[in-house]
């Protein structure tokens, strides 16, 4: 990735972007309530694991979507990407969280970056997966697959990191440093995701994270019985 990031990439990665991301913790809230994460070291481990599983999956599909958007693929391709990401997201709670953020990002993107590509995608998947939508915005605004992958991989860890500050009262400078230490892993993962961007949707990698699946389902169940502060 020798190109400078596109302004759209910066806007999409900004925590102030109004796409509904701030109400999601990516399983962190549940991990905290189960006592799995209570301090900085736990958080660093949680984020490193999340990056290499859920983060990698999101990066792979964002890169593929950016590649597809830049080529103005047929609508059937968006349907295939949507179905393949569904198949790689085993729990309903995670699919719901991904689609909620995809829809929220789409609402903002339609105002900021309207395009025929976005119209195509939303016509066949009005409530798209987050990674696919973010990738499509990159691809339709001149960004490349690697940038799309980097943005989504970063979002996969920055959201839970921010939730940890809010839930555990951790030192925000220390949490920010934890994120910064993931820099090399982020770069490597984005480059790797870019290499599979042109693959057929069915052939894309399928990293899994059973622990996050369990946390997502437990969170969804508990929020119906007691107070939960985040939507995921």
């Amino acid at each position: 990735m020798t190109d400078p990031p596109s302004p759209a990439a910066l806007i999409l990665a900004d925590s102030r972007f109004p796409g509904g991301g701030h109400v999601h913790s990516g399983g962190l809230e549940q991990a905290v309530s189960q006592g799995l994460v209570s301090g900085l070291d736990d958080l660093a481990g949680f984020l490193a694991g999340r990056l290499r599983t859920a983060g990698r999956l999101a990066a792979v599909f964002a890169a593929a979507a950016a590649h597809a958007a830049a080529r103005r693929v047929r609508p059937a391709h968006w349907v295939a990407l949507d179905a393949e990401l569904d198949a790689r997201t085993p729990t309903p709670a995670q699919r719901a969280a991904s689609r909620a953020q995809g829809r929220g990002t789409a609402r903002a993107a339609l105002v900021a970056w309207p395009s025929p590509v976005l119209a195509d995608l939303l016509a066949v998947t009005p409530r798209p997966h987050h990674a696919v939508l973010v990738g499509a915005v990159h691809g339709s605004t001149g960004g490349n697959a690697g940038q799309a992958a980097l943005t989504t991989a970063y979002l996969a860890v920055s959201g839970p990191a921010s939730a940890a500050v809010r839930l555990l009262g951790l030192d925000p400078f220390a949490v920010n440093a934890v994120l910064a230490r993931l820099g090399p892993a982020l770069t490597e993962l984005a480059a790797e995701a870019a290499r599979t961007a042109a693959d057929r949707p069915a052939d894309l990698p399928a990293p899994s994270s059973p622990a996050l699946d369990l946390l997502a389902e437990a969170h969804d169940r508990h929020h119906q019985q007691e107070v939960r502060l985040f939507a995921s």
Partner: protein
Amino acid sequence: MPADRHAHDHGPGADHVHPVNFDPTAAEPDRHRAEPSAGRAFRLGIGGPVGSGKTALTAALCRALGAELRLAVVTNDIYTTEDADFLRRAGVLAPDRIEAVRTGCCPHTAIRDDITANLDAVDQLEQRFPGLELVIIESGGDNLTAVFSRGLVDAQIFVVDVAGGDKVPRKGGPGVTTADLLVINKVDLAELVGADMAVMVADAHRMRGALPVITQSLTRTPDAPEVADWVRGRVARVAA
């Protein structure tokens, strides 16, 4: 978001829940229309500090207006379950007309800076009940600077209460100074907490210029008649 329905819809005799629901039919379909329709419900925001009586006012408005307007409610908050349960127990609205939004510990963000979760909740209610005329969006309790985005609501009420101190209107902030209606709640407590109502009301008018102020006690007038009239007027103005 829809819950893991599967785990709750087991047939008789099922006393277990799966740790993970891998039921492929539980995949969420695209429930949302691609394009919003032209007509939509009037959206009223109710904001204000913790404990000022936002939920009680919401319940009062449901009682007062429920028979004449097709309405629904979105509650927000870290205590979202609490507030939604309060409304359900009050029996003023069918439970499926109440949507609860979780705000990730940031109630003001969810009504002002990133209104996505609330817009989603409004969308869901409008799809569930076509022809809704009024959606009340009750904010989580927050500080005096928390106001609703104009992208989320058509009009907003800011609720403060006498027990919170008679200096509150004087302190100002966007809630007190810019809300379409300021409600000073719990006036029946003024004497008990040593609040000077004359000062409080005068301060409120001084801070707000021509914008309206209503004082009320839901103990004395449980159906909030003055506020309900104001809401009727706002809804009618749009419908006309």
